[in-house]
């Protein structure tokens, strides 16, 4: 019976994933992914020809694999389960077994993709046995990380502490096997020790509160990742007062203290105080700058700049969607066109500022071809126009 319950929930989860998958892996993103993967492969193969074996390459490989060998644990439990399922705790083994299999299958794609890059880099100066042992240990560490995460839910350890310890364990174990294949024994020893510690720290019975909270956080994390590419209705929006940024917030003078500007007043605050959005924008900018600077290829920089702007403009539109469907815009005596006008003014200003940052990044990377960056503000403007229009259209259809 409990496995039937899990299957129903798994089907729901798969439906949600395929629904958002359609939006994430749209044609634009697939083209970008293919180009990015091609460029990355080309660069790595080029490096393989020119680089000589070094500790830095090994460290990079171990670090990369350590960071991706962290499968998620998804039980698909719901809040109401805290009330209804505890009496059936002893009959839940089948449910959790199904959850284990499902969770393990969800986390395979990223380590598999990373393995390709690591394989190319490891082929610089390592023999087949070392490489095979490295990947064999990686597989064991993947299962170990899953097991530790699963056990840690029913302990007092924080998620942060467990993840940090796992990354450290993964890194040290993988690094040791690259130094000397015999050190694989050390990796296995660490795995056993870690598992014993976790098992000893586990509560006697299931802590339903922990399990439900863990699942809730995992689901929100998934939605947050998806929200980087498309609008997610179910995400729990959190806001954070950043007093230091309050000075940047626009305060309308008497002539603009009216319904025409009220939503612009709101949008700036939503953006600055959003828990994730400013950080996501910052992360995209920093990450893309590192890639552009590292690869140093004109076309790669152009593609990454344009795609980075596209991602950020997509993110911005969440703010409009979040506000447009709230109660107050439907109760206040303010025409909905003012919301759209305010969003246009606000978003064009923010997008312009962000395109300027990308222009500076591009110019720093390719000073001789700085003139390409002049197109970025236009690209941002056009993207913002097109995406805003599609949101307004969706909103009109929904309100009808």
């Amino acid at each position, binding site marked *: 019976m409990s496995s039937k319950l899990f299957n129903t929930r798994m089907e729901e989860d798969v439906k949600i994933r395929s629904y958002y998958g359609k939006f994430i892996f749209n044609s634009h993103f697939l083209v970008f992914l293919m180009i990015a993967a091609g460029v990355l492969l080309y660069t790595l193969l080029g490096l393989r020809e020119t680089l000589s074996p070094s500790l830095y390459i090994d460290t990079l490989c171990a670090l990369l694999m350590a960071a991706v060998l962290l499968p998620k644990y998804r039980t698909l439990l719901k809040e109401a389960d805290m009330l209804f399922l505890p009496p059936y705790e002893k009959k839940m083994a089948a449910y959790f077994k199904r959850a284990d299999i499902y969770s393990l299958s969800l986390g395979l794609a990223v380590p598999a993709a990373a393995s390709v890059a690591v394989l190319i880099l490891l082929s610089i100066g390592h023999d087949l046995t070392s490489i095979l042992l490295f990947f064999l240990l990686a597989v064991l560490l993947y299962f170990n990380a899953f097991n530790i995460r699963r056990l840690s839910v029913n302990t007092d350890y924080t998620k942060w502490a467990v993840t940090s310890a796992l990354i450290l364990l993964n890194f040290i174990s993988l690094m040791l096997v690259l130094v000397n294949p015999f050190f694989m024994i050390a990796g296995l020893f660490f795995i056993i020790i870690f598992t014993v510690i976790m098992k000893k720290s586990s509560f006697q019975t299931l802590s339903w509160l922990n399990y439900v909270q863990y699942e809730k956080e995992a689901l929100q994390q998934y939605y947050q990742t998806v929200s980087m590419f498309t609008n997610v209705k179910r995400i729990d929006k959190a806001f954070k007062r950043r007093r230091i940024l309050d000075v940047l917030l626009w305060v309308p003078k*008497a002539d603009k203290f009216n*319904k025409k500007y009220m939503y612009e007043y709101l949008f700036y*605050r939503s953006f600055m105080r959003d828990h994730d959005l400013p950080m996501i924008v910052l992360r995209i900018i920093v990450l893309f700058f590192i890639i552009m600077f590292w690869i140093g290829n004109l076309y790669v920089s152009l593609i990454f700049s344009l795609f980075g702007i596209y991602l950020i403009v997509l993110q911005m539109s969440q703010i409009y969607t979040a506000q447009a469907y709230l*109660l*107050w815009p439907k109760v206040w005596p303010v025409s909905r066109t003012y919301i759209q006008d305010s969003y246009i003014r606000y978003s064009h200003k923010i997008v312009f500022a962000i395109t300027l940052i990308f222009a500076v990044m591009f110019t720093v990377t390719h000073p001789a071809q700085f003139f390409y960056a002049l197109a970025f503000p236009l690209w941002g403007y056009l993207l913002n126009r097109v995406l805003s229009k599609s949101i307004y259209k969706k909103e009109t259809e929904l309100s009808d």
Partner: protein
Amino acid sequence: MVLEINELTGGYSKDPVIHDISFNIKAGEIIGLIGLNGAGKSTTIKHILGLLRPHSGNIKVMDKTIDSDVEAYRRHMGYIPESPILYEELTLREHINMTAMAYGLTPQEVEARKGPLLKRFRLDDKEDTFPSHFSKGMKQKVMLICAFIVEPELYIIDEPFLGLDPLGIESLIELMISERDKNRSILMSTHILATAERYCDRYIIIDQGRKIADGTLDELREQTGLSEGTLDDVYIQLTGGKRHEQ
């Protein structure tokens, strides 16, 4: 008339929840909208606010229908929902500013009006705090401040006393009476009949989506034959009592 509802039938889907409801509110009246859970009070309120479209019938606020001029229709109404609905990213001051901008108040009017309201609800030292961090009662006070600062002709208050402490309830009652004295009207749905009996001028009782009574307490007493009955007695007689007899 401040509010006129004529033969309103409506609901959330094709199946109506409320049927042929008609009533009026004059300037300077406090009206209690009373009914059991699921009777149709909130549905009626949502229709008045324009959040739901009537299947038939019409609603006028200050002689305007929502279709004739949506902004003018809404400008005369202030709404306080049953559960506080706040912008998590805005401080109390910013909530007040947003409301003021929506209703066309000048910054000077805001400054003049907000002080007494903040003091009355004991939030005068919380202007720069996020109300989303407040207790439920304090959040409800934010809703009250935002509605009362506008000074509209008609206040629509859904379960006004839920979550408020006794001092908050007393402050709200004083404020409602003071607004009535300024010829403004209030429509409030409530279950706390003993409190409603103290200051409502008239009651509209809804049961199973239909209006079953409309009048002053004396008129309702006469209708039910409970000459000395409290509003509770009258209400039970009109709703529960009748059902028990069946």
